[in-house]
């Protein structure tokens, strides 16, 4: 338990007591005990997985018919529906949902890092339909270095949301009009929300050159 307690906030002033930063729980540490849902790690007891149920509705059937091989599963968990698609299938599905199923509002794009998995990132699109009052997530697993197609052509909102995903995870979107960092400084190295980026890690060189101080961390 104490190992999980991080000694410092992420970007606070230097530690007041001058304590040396403890060795951090390594990237995979949070995922060490319970395995991430997808890969079946050879553990003594089977890893806990998300108890998702298959989602059956007109829309789900329609999607499976329309995109055979590209929509891998339609599931529901805690009453929230999601579609698992292949990386190439995500944007066509998004487009189909927008044009033919009235899912006209892209709520969010985000990613989740599972460093132990072959396809390292989960890319998650949340869409909402005003006429149907329904929310659906599209999930797709992509490998590190894969450049997924941008969603800007479908929804303009995707512009900044994809930039943030790029900033935090280093997932580059192909065809994005303006693929720059958005929250971090442009010359910053490293992608903060990856699991192998420690919470107190900083781009020391950037801090030194731009702020003129030695980072205290």
């Amino acid at each position, binding site marked *: 338990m104490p190992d*999980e307690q*991080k000694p410092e*906030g*992420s*970007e606070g002033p230097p530690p007041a007591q001058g304590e040396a930063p403890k060795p951090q729980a390594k990237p995979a540490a*949070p*995922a060490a*005990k*319970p*395995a*991430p*849902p997808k890969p079946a790690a050879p553990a003594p007891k089977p890893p*806990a*997985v*998300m*108890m*998702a149920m298959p989602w059956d509705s007109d829309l789900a059937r329609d999607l499976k018919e329309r995109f055979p091989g590209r929509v891998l599963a339609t599931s529901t*968990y*805690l009453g*929230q529906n999601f579609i698992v698609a292949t990386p190439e299938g995500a944007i066509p599905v998004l487009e189909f949902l927008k044009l033919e199923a009235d899912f*006209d*509002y*892209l*709520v*969010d794009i*985000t990613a*989740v*890092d599972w460093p132990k998995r072959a396809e390292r990132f989960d890319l*998650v699109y*949340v869409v909402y339909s*005003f006429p149907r*009052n329904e*929310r659906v*997530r599209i999930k797709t697993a992509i490998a590190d270095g894969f450049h997924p197609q941008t969603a800007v052509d479908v*929804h*303009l*909102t995707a*512009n*900044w*949301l994809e930039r*943030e995903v790029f900033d*935090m995870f280093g997932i580059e979107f192909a065809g994005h009009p303006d693929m720059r*960092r*958005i*929250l*971090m*400084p442009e010359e910053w190295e490293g992608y*903060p*929300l990856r*699991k192998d*980026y420690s*919470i107190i890690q900083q781009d020391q060189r950037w801090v030194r050159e731009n702020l003129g101080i030695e980072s205290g961390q």
Partner: protein
Amino acid sequence: MPDATFLDSTELVLNMGPQHPSTHGVLRVILKLDGEKVLGTDCVIGYLHRGVEKIAENRTYTQFNPYVDRMDYVAAISNGLGYCLAVEKLLNVEAPPRAQAVRVILTELNRIASHLIWLGTHALDIGAVTPLFYCFREREEALKIFENYCGARLTTHAFRIGGLQYETYEGFEREVKAFCKMFGPKVDEYEELLTNNRIWMGRLKGVGVLSADECKEYGVTGPMLRAAGVKWDLRKAQPYSGYEKYDFEIPTRENGDTYDRYVVRMQEMRQAARIVEQAVENIPEGPILGKVGKVIKPPVGEAYVSIEAPKGELGYYVVSDGSTQPYRVRVRPPSFVNLQALDRMVRGGLIADVVAVIGTLDIVLGEVDR
């Protein structure tokens, strides 16, 4: 030889911010100007980036709760409510009725407080100094209720996962009722100052128009969407925390310009006071904390829960790996997404309107940058 009949109009690049009083924080807008006309903008954000999502991965569920208050710090209670609801969804528990009623009261009071800040600063940007003082005076009353209830005024940490930590204090209902009674006439007063004021109308009408389709395209939510004529409010569309029990209206307007957003927000304050009045009339008796253990350990899974924050749809996407720490917390901030529409709203307009449009966006940079 260049054509000298016309004055040379080269593009002028002007930095607005990051230290500019009307950007409401540390927003930097790079304006491309042709004289007074705005040709394009580029927002530079991230000056207030604190890595809240990263912090979440290194804290327990309970420990992360106070951090969410620091995103949208003028509506901290709404942030807390969204986070608590998201984790409760993962745990598959619901807060007891008494906790829900108190949550609604505090969240709506916070909506009023947030809108008051918006009104005061927006009017100040336009040039009307007086409303700021009146708004802060009334906001103070709301903050006093928060202080009495949970001991903090701004970053309240008022709710806990599963319900509430604090029982209502003695005189809570009386004070809330007094606030509602006092507040109605005060809104009339603001309206008297502004609604028909010719300078106010001249500066706001027809400025920063965003139609309903554009709003959906840009993912703009909240009062801005409603001002464009879309009658959509998450409190009605997907009620949470017992909002279905209260009778209130969703104010909408047609034009989607800055003036309409002003009217919608003024109406929203009245509606919020109406909800509070109904909620405080019958707060059910009973426990305030639901059946959650001391250690919060949701099963493996994920959930996206969103609420109607004062600025728009505030969503939390929480992924649990079965441990005591969230595997990933993603915040869908309304300000961030709404700010993206700034370029569309000011392009082709005048430079003076940029200030009005930033004011009407009602952004909080703490939430934009997280």
